[in-house]
């Protein structure tokens, strides 16, 4: 039938061997996309198929992938995300890091759904792809430059018909810091899982894309109709002029004033994000209890209003010169901030600090110096290091210092007292450079605690080596499930009780439980069947989102608005029901888990530090006394995933029911 070949995806990937500078185009059959979508699913498929079991994450056998989404470039809105995938050197399991910016459409415009690199180059290289195909170019003169300098230098070196889309590592990735990320467009970061270290281990400095191939979908008119409906609602969602940042703490208090669930219309959340970006929760999270304080052991009592008010997003906005948004985004949560004055001329601009960075270097360290956070933000963006992991690691060091387990002799004279902004900035610089005391902290909190000794382990907040995002599971225990159960642990965007409520997935997926007005939120602190079901649903839809290139904020604006299932059918010509897509999501997640099991990971070892399950509970603040049994919560999640309830290993039945095409799944189960 005419147009049958138009499916939204390219149908092939590029495999680059950096050891012998060869390129191979690999055709991917339609069946693979129908089983795993694109994006993270395609990434998991390729890694599982081609990565040798037991590969050293920092060795030549590891494969680093840059994957776009199935919906990217099809005319859908909110689908400009890409992922870096690899075997993670931080956790030893499946690694993926999600990012926006300008890179995602550029991958598909090169003619590939994903670009994968194996081997190791003997000298620094960059991969350049334009309409003439791929080339490996010398990058020795770029090695040592930070990410912003690298992009500028590449733009000087290479002229192409199209503006270059660049993904690059900074010094942190070059030093193979296990918490190094990959930067795009001056500081949009694929930050987690140590993807930057893998890139650095391959001596790959940058991937530079300048292709302009067309991306074609089956029914572009339907896609446009869906997009217009979404845009109309987003356009109408605006805060009143009187709304100021000063009101946000009160809003936070009111959200936890009741234990009753209030199903909300996520669309109006776009109003708040349009105004402030993720920073709206800098202060709101303090009164809610969402924002962690003092290495997760404190509360708003330790970082009261007179301190956290400095993080008022209005104050951050004052420096914003214009908004920044990812490709195909109609909300626009990012921004560009002028920090010439703040940094005393050191930096002219920075991407507006995200909530994660503000919290990780603010309340988590009892640091009220807002200016220092702008500088840290730019240091980490340029250095190519994950702010969540870096902040958590410094918090750990500060708690050790508080206990006199670290002295100024060990820290090279740095006084790591809570809130010492100057010391924090210096330490960040050291971590990026991998020098002095920063050399101990540069690989994240797990390695740091191993170096410092066993007594420090309880203070090291991580799950399987990855540090948690700035959202407290003691407020939302299902978040805690995903911190511990996701194959890439410690991630705050996988799922939560609140995300489930905002998504309104029950309007599409017939077996998804409806959140009723007035439901008791305390029910989510017990490992009930409903909790298991919700956490499973979280994971399935998240995989669908990451397979599509979709944005998390679109998801939580509500699936009743962001019609991802309709988008997917219109792009591909499939006629799948939402229930069928959920099965695809379940398969994608099971494949990621299977990868971990095959790599010898015991899923239970990914349990998050028990401080985050309220063991022991906080004595003060909005989360005083809150706790849940994380072991039981993990069990109920595994059960609903169809995995062994005790071990978290996918069962033979689950694997055969789901079907994994040509992948050998034997090593990923034990019966």
């Amino acid at each position, binding site marked *: 039938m005419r147009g049958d070949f138009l499916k939204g995806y390219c149908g092939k990937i590029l495999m680059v061997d950096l050891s012998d500078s060869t390129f191979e185009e690999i055709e991917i059959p339609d069946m693979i996309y129908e089983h795993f979508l694109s994006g993270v699913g395609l990434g998991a498929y390729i890694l599982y198929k081609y990565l040798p079991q037991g590969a050293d994450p920092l060795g030549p056998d590891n494969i680093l992938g840059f994957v776009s989404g199935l919906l990217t470039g099809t005319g859908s809105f909110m689908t400009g995300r890409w992922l870096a995938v690899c075997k993670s050197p931080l956790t030893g399991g499946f690694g993926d890091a999600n990012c926006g910016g300008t890179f995602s459409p550029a991958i598909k415009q090169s003619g590939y759904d994903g670009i994968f690199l194996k081997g190791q180059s003997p000298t620094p290289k960059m991969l350049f792809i334009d309409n003439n195909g791929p080339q490996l170019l010398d990058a020795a003169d770029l090695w040592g430059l930070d990410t912003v300098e690298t992009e500028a230098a590449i733009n000087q070196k290479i002229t192409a018909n199209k503006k270059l889309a660049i993904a690059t590592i900074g010094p942190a990735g070059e030093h193979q810091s296990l918490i190094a990320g990959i930067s795009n467009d001056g500081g949009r970061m694929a930050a987690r899982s140590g993807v930057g270290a893998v890139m650095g281990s391959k001596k790959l400095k940058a991937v530079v894309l300048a292709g302009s191939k067309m991306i074609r979908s089956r029914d572009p008119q339907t896609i446009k109709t869906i997009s217009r409906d979404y845009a109309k609602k987003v356009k109408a969602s605006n805060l009143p002029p009187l709304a100021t940042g000063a009101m946000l703490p009160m809003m936070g208090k009111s959200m936890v004033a009741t234990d009753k669930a209030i199903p909300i219309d996520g669309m109006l959340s776009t109003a708040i994000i349009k105004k402030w970006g993720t920073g709206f929760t800098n202060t709101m999270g303090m009164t809610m209890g969402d924002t962690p304080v003092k290495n997760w052991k404190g509360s708003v009592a330790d970082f009261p209003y007179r301190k956290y008010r400095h993080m008022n997003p209005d104050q951050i906005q004052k420096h914003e010169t214009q908004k920044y948004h990812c490709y195909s985004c109609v909300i626009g949560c990012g921004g560009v901030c002028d920090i010439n004055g703040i940094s005393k001329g050191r930096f002219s601009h920075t991407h507006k600090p995200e909530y994660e960075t503000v919290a990780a270097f603010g309340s988590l360290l009892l640091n009220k110096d807002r200016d220092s956070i702008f500088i840290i933000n730019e240091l980490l963006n340029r250095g190519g290091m994950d702010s969540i992991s870096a902040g958590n690691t410094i918090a750990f060091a500060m708690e050790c210092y508080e206990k006199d387990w670290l002295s100024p002799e060990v820290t090279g004279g740095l006084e790591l007292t809570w809130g010492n902004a100057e010391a924090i900035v210096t330490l960040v610089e050291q971590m990026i450079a991998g020098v002095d005391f920063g050399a101990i902290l540069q690989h994240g909190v797990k390695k740091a605690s191993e170096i410092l000794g066993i007594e420090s382990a309880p203070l090291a907040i991580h799950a399987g080596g990855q540090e948690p995002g700035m959202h407290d599971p003691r407020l939302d225990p299902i978040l805690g499930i995903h911190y511990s159960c996701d194959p890439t642990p410690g991630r705050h965007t996988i799922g939560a009780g609140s995300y489930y409520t905002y998504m309104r997935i029950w309007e599409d997926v017939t077996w998804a439980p409806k959140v009723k*007005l007035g439901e008791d939120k305390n029910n989510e602190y017990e490992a009930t069947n409903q909790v298991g079901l919700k956490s499973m649903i979280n994971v399935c839809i998240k995989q669908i989102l990451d397979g599509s290139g979709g944005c*998390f904020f679109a998801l939580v604006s509500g699936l009743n608005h962001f019609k991802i299932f309709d988008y997917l059918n219109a792009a591909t010509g499939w006629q799948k029901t939402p229930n069928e897509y959920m099965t695809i999501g379940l398969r994608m997640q099971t494949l990621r888990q299977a990868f971990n099991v095959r790599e010898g990971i015991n899923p239970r070892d990914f349990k998050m530090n028990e401080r985050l399950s309220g063991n022991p509970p906080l004595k003060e603040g909005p989360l005083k006394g809150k706790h849940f049994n994380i072991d039981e919560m993990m069990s109920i999640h595994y059960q609903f995933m169809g995995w062994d309830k005790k071990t978290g290993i996918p069962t033979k039945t689950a694997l055969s029911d789901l079907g994994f095409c040509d992948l050998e799944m034997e090593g990923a189960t034990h019966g």
Partner: protein
Amino acid sequence: MKVQIYPPPFASLTNLDEDGMMVLPPGARLFTVYRRLKIPLVLQPLVICNVNYQRMKLNTQLKDGDVISFMLPLAGG
């Protein structure tokens, strides 16, 4: 007539059923919804309210099946 309400967290829920529907007399206006939700005056400047995803005045007349959404932020990022 019935309208779908997405209330703000501090609202009174007594006039809503478990699906968030509110029964109103035909021709009821938006300010009736505000009154029944008991939205405090001091918080009203922060509250944004859309009817079918459009800003409407408080004296807007509602009809059966209208969706009235009150702004509520969320976590993530």
